[in-house]
């Protein structure tokens, strides 16, 4: 199509050489992209390099960084019990949230995709929790799951169950955070909804012709077509879950109590950096997290070849 434009242009006017045209195109392209290029350098590339450097130093901000080699990393793995605890806590949290959250979100999306009346209202109701600011979210759920006066334990008592201590109980603290996160699953639901609507209708018709019932259609048509979206949501969700911070900080006042059951990885990192001023040590923690996230993501993508099905669309 661009060729047509060039053909109808008067050749006499356009004498610029191909070389200078290319340079011009490069300069213009860079000019438009310059805010981001500068941003990448200043707010991303430099900090990544700097944090790697800091991780090999003893840095308390008040004095200059002092090189100590791999000692931060060694201390993390051998001296710091809280470090191991935080990894376990975060792993358990993510390990609970991602599978349950994925199933829950897909189930909701399937429900909300039916052609039933009042669907817009239903969808809105499930999306509303996403809008609640994190602080309000944490406070409301702390109250909802209050062991003595909260709604949940009250309702449980109605059916004769003695509700647990939720956030105040070391065993129940992490499940409490999981439940709170499940409430805000709306974003994922919307993405799954869009994915569901992208499934070509004739696949379902073909399945009907072959005699498939609703369950078979779900398992053999819907879910396979949905796998790219599932992969996306799982990766994004996992990266987010591994960095859980704000809710835990607000509810525990930054302490990770009770008994460090809510001492998540980034919460510990925050404490080391901004409470104990051990910036070098905290930077080492950040890089360990980075590497763990990279490994997990790579594993997920590698595994995706087994279970993700990309329909033959041209993806550019």
């Amino acid at each position: 199509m661009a060729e047509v434009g060039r053909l109808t242009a008067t050749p006499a006017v356009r004498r610029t050489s191909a070389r200078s045209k290319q340079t011009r195109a490069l300069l213009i392209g860079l000019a438009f992209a310059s805010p981001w290029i500068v941003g990448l350098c200043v707010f991303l590339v430099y900090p990544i390099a700097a944090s790697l450097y800091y991780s090999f130093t003893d840095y308390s901000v008040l004095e200059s960084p002092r090189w100590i080699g791999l000692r931060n990393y060694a201390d993390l793995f051998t001296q710091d019990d809280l470090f191991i605890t935080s990894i376990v806590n975060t792993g358990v949290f993510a390990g609970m949230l991602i599978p349950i959250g994925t199933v829950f979100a897909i189930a909701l999306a399937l429900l909300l995709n039916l052609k039933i009346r009042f669907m817009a209202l239903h969808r809105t109701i499930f999306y509303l929790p996403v809008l609640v600011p994190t602080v309000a979210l944490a406070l409301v759920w702390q109250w909802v799951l209050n062991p003595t006066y909260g709604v949940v334990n009250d309702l449980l008592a109605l059916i004769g169950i003695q509700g647990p201590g939720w956030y105040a109980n070391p065993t129940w603290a992490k499940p409490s955070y999981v439940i709170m996160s499940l409430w805000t699953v709306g974003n994922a639901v919307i993405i799954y909804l869009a994915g569901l609507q992208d499934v070509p209708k004739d696949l379902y018709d073909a399945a009907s012709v072959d005699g498939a019932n609703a369950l078979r259609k779900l398992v053999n048509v819907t879910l396979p077509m949905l796998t790219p979206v599932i992969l996306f949501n799982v990766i994004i969700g996992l990266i987010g879950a591994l960095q859980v911070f704000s809710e835990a900080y607000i509810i525990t006042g930054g302490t990770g109590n009770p008994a460090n059951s809510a001492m998540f990885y980034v919460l510990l990192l925050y404490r080391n950096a901004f409470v104990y001023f051990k910036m070098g040590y905290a930077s080492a923690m950040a890089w360990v997290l980075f590497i763990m996230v990279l490994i997990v993501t790579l594993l997920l993508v590698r595994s995706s070849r087994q279970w993700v099905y990309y329909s033959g669309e041209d993806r550019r």
Partner: protein
Amino acid sequence: MAALTQERALTTVGPRPRGLWRGVLRPVLVQIVLVCAGITFLMPFLWMLSTSLKDDQHIFVYPPQWIPAPMMFSNYPAALQYIPYGTYFLNTLQIALFATVGTVISCSLVAYSLARLHWPGRNVLFILTLATMMLPFAVTLIPLFIVFKTLGWINTFRPLIVPAYFGSAFFIFLLRQFFLTIPVELSDAARIDGANELGIFLRIMVPLIKPALATVALLQFLGSYRDFLGPLIYLTDNTKYTLSIGLTIYSSQHSTEWSMLMAASVVMTTPIIILFFFTQRTFVQGITLGGVKG
């Protein structure tokens, strides 16, 4: 044999006869399930509202009562006076608005470059942009703090506003996808007519992309409004706090005054909900484009 009769059924003129299950029972069952699930989902909201209108002696009551009696509407003004709510709200608004403007401007420029301008290295930059979306924020947290400290920007709004003017990976990606849907002929025709790139961008591209810009603006605004970690580490003066930090401080000082806390939470959440109801479609389309077409 079965396939043939099925085919005949599919090509029959008129609506297929719907049995009792599909026509009546299933929709009703689905409605019941949705309503029950919906009520469960709404329950925290209702509990928040209910608590916010109770007076102290009726909160710590077992079994809890849902409808407050008496209705303490006075809790709201009281909660807003305990902490400088007006100041915090204005701070939050200021940060959110400036950041939103910066995001829209910078991300649209960059997205245009990645979508409709052709220059060597463009695709590399795009892949890099995608890669940065997966970077854990914890990695850059500390050096960024040091950078801003060196610049003397701690305890100002600048760390929360200025980075927005330098682009943001997710929004750049989103807008790039949108720009790609504009026909190439439009910009080509303008080029032939002698327009320069900036002119094409401002007068042709941007107007065509308005819904996407609205989405970006909305999502950025929401993100700034709700931001917790940023204000936590960059703002130390309590006159500069945002709503997020203000409410957190308040909750740590008045940890058992649940009616006040719930009232404050309601006031903090309501503007967003109202905003959402006016801009529903923009919200949803933004998230879907990021997640599915990606």
